[in-house]
């Protein structure tokens, strides 16, 4: 039996047009899963950092990593599953706040999850939550009774614990 495992892969990409599409294209062409993907610039303007969450058996993950490394735009990568690491996701949710009781209940749940209400409108609260996947999902479940209107999630971001870093080696 092959066991399917979730892997979070951090990738340093050349900050060039098409780089993201090469990674996305690789996954669709070879039939690999993408659970979430996040990409943004870094402090080095020539590099983007991508956090990609995928799942597969050991052999598939090994191929994914080899194939990613083969892309010329991939400068360096790290399978965070091999390291102690921290994952965070940002979510913004709009929730129907029908009446005073609902408003209070939503506020209470938000406090429990250390979420923040970042906007209010007539009968709608917009809430920001940060956390690991489990917390995000627990929050959504807790809010389910209140009528979730809209959800936007960043996908996971990951970083290794301690002083180890994912960065490009400076060659002398």
């Amino acid at each position, binding site marked *: 039996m092959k066991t399917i495992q979730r892997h979070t892969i951090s990738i340093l990409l*050349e900050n060039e*047009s*098409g780089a993201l*599409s*090469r990674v996305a*294209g*690789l996954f669709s*062409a070879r039939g690999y899963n993408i659970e979430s993907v996040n990409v943004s610039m870094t402090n080095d303007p020539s590099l983007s950092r991508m956090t990609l969450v995928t799942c597969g058996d050991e*052999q598939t993950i*090994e*191929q994914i990593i*080899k*194939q990613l*490394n*083969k892309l*010329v*735009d*991939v*400068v*360096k990568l790290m399978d965070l599953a091999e390291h102690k690491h921290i994952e965070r996701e940002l979510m913004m949710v709009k929730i129907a706040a029908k009446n005073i009781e609902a408003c209070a209940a939503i506020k209470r749940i938000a406090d429990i999850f250390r979420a923040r209400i970042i906007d209010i409108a007539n009968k709608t609260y917009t809430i920001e939550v940060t956390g690991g996947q489990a917390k995000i999902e627990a929050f959504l479940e807790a809010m389910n009774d209140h009528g979730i209107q809209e959800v936007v999630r960043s996908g996971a971001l990951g970083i290794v614990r301690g002083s180890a870093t994912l960065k*490009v080696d400076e*060659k002398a």
Partner: protein
Amino acid sequence: MELSGAEIFLECLKAEKVDTIFGYPGGAVLFLYDALEKAEKENTIRHILARHEQGAVHAAEGYAKSTDKPGVAIVTSGPGATNAVTGIADAYMDSVPLVVITGQVNRDLIGRDAFQEIDIVGITRPCVKHNFLVTKLEELAPTMKKAFYLATSGRPGPVLVDIPKDLTAEKMAKADFSYPETITIRSYDPTTKGHPKQIRAAAKLIAQAKKPIIYSGGGVILSRAAEELIAFSHELDCPVTNTLMGLGAYPAMDKQFIGMLGMHGTYEANMAMHGADVVIAIGARFDDRVTGKLSKFCPDAKFIHIDIDPSSISKNVSADIPIVGDVKAVLPRLLAEYCSLGETIDANALKQWWRQVDEWRGQDSLAYNQKDDEPIMAQYVIDTLWQLTEGDAYITSDVGQHQMWAAQYYKFNKPNRWINSGGLGTMGFGLPAAMGVQLAHPNETVACITGDGSIQMCIQELATCNQYQLPLNIINLNNGYLGMVRQWQEFFYDKRYAMSYMDALPDFVKLAEAYGHVGMKIERPCDVEGALKEALSMKDRLVFLDIITKPEGNVFPMIPAGAGQNEMKLK
């Protein structure tokens, strides 16, 4: 003094010592062609005008596969670029070093659905090693340098450079131009040497083998490591089998050679793979046409896998000892390590193994019987061609039955002589590829073994052959069918021959003549040898031999889909 983008482009080609470029002009590449015209006049770079962009790219592939240089092709934007895609994909699958230049619309028109605009960088992304859209003139030279470097290093492959038209007209000071002598790409540094620990482990495993086999592929040819492979194999004295792409890397006439393996490989090659206890895979990628059903593949074997591309290792078959590196660098080290171990393969075990392999050989799975009063057998034609050319011709092929027969019956003793489309299986490859080979080797015999289906896919290149006076031998094994499709329909679709009959075939003799060549039609076995001799003796003419062969001939041996290597159909 100023240089235009087109002139810089030309300087780049010269710096890369490009002597031949295959292409087809069009609006977006007019400035580039203006520069190429100048090169033609000063006799630095010769441009070969194909009759279709697919032909241009296949010709560049033929040129590259038969030499140690990359192939270079240039096409215009839009349809020129999309027509080139099949050739690019073909080069990708067979790891052919290629630099393909596509014209693009002016930079300010990109994204506006301009005339002949297509996002060719997007289209080709999954079938190139890498590609570039050049957006600044000062980036043109470094990009060209990167393209040639990427195409030819590591596991070779096609690299596409898309150049907007206005950039080719733009000018910069000559003083600001220099072609970089070297280039480093921070994310790209292929491993070549092979890890010493892995090499030692491999040597030890080999020494303990009782039934070893060498399974070598196209990587040996790409790495120019035929000599190293021969030295290594002779020391081990074990059976050697080649993949379709690897034919010629090991001399077919050597006594250790047991033929090609895989779906249409020899009985002895497949049985030996099935029975082996140690498989040494060298520059081969365990393609599905080689392995058959994976769960039945080499049940008793441990695998040593040498490949420059880490992603080829353990992709289909899990390697016990992976060695990432260039075959040419790894093999001598592995040999030295093996020789210094103090133990070698047990001589008695090896003797017994050879006795078994020779017994399988005794099956003579490629035997055929051409009778005088029966239709011509393709096997007989290729066998005769092999004898007449003493196994020393450059052979290109298209895709289908004739390709398998060529691989089985033309015994290649040298690398780079067998030029075919293995991975993508592109019908239409053979004729243009042969043009590229002949242009690279003007004084050598080049034969294109093709079929009545495949030849019609790039038949227009007969005009190119006329223009450049390429004395190819085209051997059209004409059975009136898409033979491989028909064979599968016979075996697996209850003889329902859906669309595999090639009705309304042209008169190939007249067609060849219309293009200015010599055409001959051969219908009897007794005429085959004479016709081939005559064709081969015409050193200054293209001869198109339309050989009418047995309509329902089948390629044997064959491993049916889903079967194991030891479950071959022999007839």
